[in-house]
C-alpha cells in the first residue's frame, strides 16, 4: 500500500546518516547489558493525560544505552464505549478496534503516514491481547477505539548496524503497547477481568566466542551480540492466563524446556510491568 495522497521522499535506497560524536565508540561492537538478567528497565506510566479521550495513558521506558535518556515513548487514548454507527450490524459484544502507529520520526528509518504492514500486525497482536482481558458482553451494541502512537521508538541511535531486522524492536514495542492500553482501558472504565501487561524475554548470545546463550528479560537488541529467540507475552496475573503469545526465533524442538523457560521469563517480566500498572492505577484513585 503506497501513500498516494502525499509526496514522500524516495523509498529505501538511502541509509540514515550517523553523526560523528566525541563519545562515539567502536561502531561494530555491542555495548553489553548493564542490568541484571531478571531486571526490566524502569518505566514511567501515567493515566489521564488526554482530557478529551474517555481514557488515556502515557508510557515511557528508559533506555540503558545512554543513562537518563528515555527510549520508548507511547501514548494511548481510548475512545468509547460509544454507540456503533447505524450502518454497523448488531453486535452482542463491544466492538474493539486497535490502531498502532509509529510517528514518522519515531525510528531511524522514517515511517510514512499510512500504517505499514508491520504496524497493522502490531495492531492485531494488541487486539488479541486485549480481547481476552475485557468483558466484552457487558457492552453490547457499542464500540471502542484504542489508538496508540509510538512517539519514539526504542532504537539505539548510536549504533549504525540494524540488528537483524526490526522484529525484536517490535516485540518491545508490543509489550509496551499492551501495558499502556490496559492502563488506558482501566482509565476509561471499561470492564476487564484483570489487568493485562506485556513482557518480553529473549535468549541472547553475548559478544565473545563460545559464550553460552542466556535468557534475559526486556532485551535491548543493541546490547547483545545476537538474539537467538524472543517471546512477547500478555499475561493476566490473578487468573494466571496468557491472552497473547508471540514467539520468534530458532530453537531445537527436542528441547522444550528452553522454550518453556523463555515463556516463564516473559511472564515474569509481565508481572513486573503489571506491578507498575497497578501502582499507577491506585495512585490515580488516591
Amino acid at each position: 500500500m503506497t501513500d498516494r495522497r502525499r509526496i514522500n521522499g524516495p523509498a529505501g535506497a538511502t541509509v540514515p546518516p550517523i553523526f560523528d560524536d566525541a563519545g562515539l565508540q567502536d561502531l561494530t561492537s555491542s555495548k553489553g547489558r548493564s542490568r541484571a538478567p531478571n531486571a526490566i528497565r524502569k518505566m514511567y506510566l501515567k493515566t489521564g493525560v488526554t482530557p478529551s479521550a474517555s481514557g488515556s495513558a502515557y508510557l515511557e521506558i528508559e533506555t540503558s544505552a545512554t543513562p537518563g535518556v528515555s527510549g520508548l515513548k507511547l501514548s494511548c487514548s481510548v475512545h468509547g464505549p460509544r454507540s456503533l454507527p447505524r450502518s454497523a450490524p448488531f453486535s452482542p459484544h463491544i466492538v474493539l478496534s486497535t490502531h498502532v502507529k509509529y510517528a514518522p520520526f519515531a525510528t531511524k528509518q522514517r515511517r510514512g503516514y499510512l500504517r505499514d504492514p508491520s504496524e497493522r500486525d502490531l495492531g492485531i497482536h494488541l487486539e488479541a491481547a486485549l480481547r481476552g482481558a475485557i468483558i466484552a458482553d457487558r457492552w453490547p451494541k457499542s464500540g471502542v477505539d484504542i489508538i496508540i502512537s509510538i512517539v519514539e521508538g526504542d532504537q539505539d541511535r548510536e549504533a549504525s548496524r540494524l540488528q537483524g531486522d526490526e522484529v525484536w524492536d517490535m516485540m518491545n514495542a508490543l509489550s509496551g503497547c499492551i501495558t499502556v492500553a490496559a492502563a488506558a482501558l482501566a482509565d476509561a472504565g471499561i470492564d476487564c477481568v484483570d489487568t493485562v501487561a506485556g513482557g518480553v524475554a529473549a535468549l541472547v548470545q553475548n559478544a565473545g566466542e563460545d559464550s553460552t546463550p542466556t535468557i534475559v528479560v526486556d532485551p535491548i537488541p543493541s546490547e547483545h551480540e545476537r538474539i537467538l529467540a524472543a517471546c512477547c507475552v500478555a499475561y493476566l496475573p490473578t487468573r494466571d492466563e496468557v491472552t497473547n503469545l508471540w514467539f520468534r526465533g530458532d530453537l531445537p524442538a527436542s528441547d522444550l524446556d528452553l522454550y518453556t523457560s523463555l515463556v516463564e521469563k516473559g511472564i515474569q517480566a509481565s508481572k513486573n510491568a503489571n506491578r507498575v500498572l497497578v501502582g499507577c492505577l491506585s495512585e490515580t484513585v488516591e
Partner: protein
Amino acid sequence: MASSQHVLLSPAELAYLHASLSLTPPIRPDGRSPTQFRPLVAETGILPGTNGSARICFADGTEAIVGVKAEVERTAQRPGEETVFLEEGGAGDDEEEEGEAVDKRKGDASWVEMTVEIPGLRDDDSGTAFLSAMLSEALLADGEFAKRLWINRRFHWKLYLDIILISPPLSYPLPLLSLTTHLALLSTRLPRLKSEGDEDPFFDDDWAAAPYLYPRTPTSVAKPTATTTTTRPPITLLVMAVGNNIIFDPSKEELAVADVALAVSVTSTASSHHIDTDTGHPAAEAGRNLRLLSIRTIDPPSRLTPPAVANAANAAYGASNGAALGTQKMLEARTAETEAVEGVWRAPRGGAKRMVLGALVQKVLERGGVVDEVLDALEGVDLG
C-alpha cells in the same frame, strides 16, 4: 476486524460443537480424528514463468496458488561494514575468499517480499497483513534463509513470494497458504552463477542447470520414508484446544468454539550451521532435526459469538409473560449469568492457561508426531 473471520453460528450450534469437541476422543463435525488434516490435492511447477510455483486445493474447492519470482538487486552498503573495492586484491585473495565464503554470506529480511491476496478482503486489511507477517516471519526466523539469496558482496537475489487464494476462504486459510508456500519454495530454482567474486553477476542461461534454492538429496526422491536431514522450508500449522483436546487443522466451525488457537511454525534442518543450544542432549541419530521457529496466538472468533440464554433466564421460555417475571425467576437468571449451565453456550473470557499453551506446543513438536507425518507427505509430492 480480528485476525480470524467472524462466523455467524447460533448459540445452540456452538454449544453442540463445543460439547462434541470436548468429548474424549472428540467427535469432529466432519468425522476426522483430532490430528487428521483435510485431504489435499497438490502439485508443483505449474507456472513456467516463475522460479517456483505450487498449487493446493481442498475438496471444498478452496484453492491457493503460490508463485516465486527472483530478481537481482544491488545490496545497500552500510557504514561500519567493510567497504567493497572492486579492484581489491589479486588472484591470490580470491582463493582465500572462497574459503571464508560461508562466513561472509549475509542476509537481510528485506530481500524477501511476501504478499497475500485473499479475494473479498481489502488489500490493506489487517488480517492479510497478519497472515503474510506470520508466513514471512517463519521463513526468516532462523536468519538462514536470506543467506541463500546472497550472490556476492554487492548483489543479492530479491525474492518475491506471491500467495493467491482463488476464492474467498471457507476456513482460516493459514495452513493452506503455508503448505502451498512450502511446496513452491521446494520447487524454486535460481539460475546458476557463472561470474566470480564481487563482479557484476552473470548467469548460466541453461535452466536445466539451475540449482534448487533448497538443495535436494537423492534419497528424498527415491523413498519418502528414507530419513533426509536436509533443510526444508518452514511449515505453519494451525492448532487449537477445546477443553482437554488438541485439534489440528480446524475448520471454520471448529475454530468458532476454540478456547485457544495457535499458529506454530516449524522447520527441519541439517543441524551443522546452527549454534547448538542443546549441547547437553544426545544428538538424535535418526529422524528429522525439528526446529521451532515461531508461535503466534490467533484470536479465536469464539470470543465474538453470541451467548445463549439459559431456559431459566429466558423470557420467551414457558408460558410466563415478560411482565410476570417474578423475583424467583430473577434470581435464577442471575445464577444463570454467572455459572456455566450445561448445554448453554457462553463465549470464553480471559486467556489460556499456561499448561494448555505448553501442551499445544508440545503436541506439535512431538517426535514422530504430526509435523513429521506432514513433512513426509509433502516430500511425497512430485516436484515437477
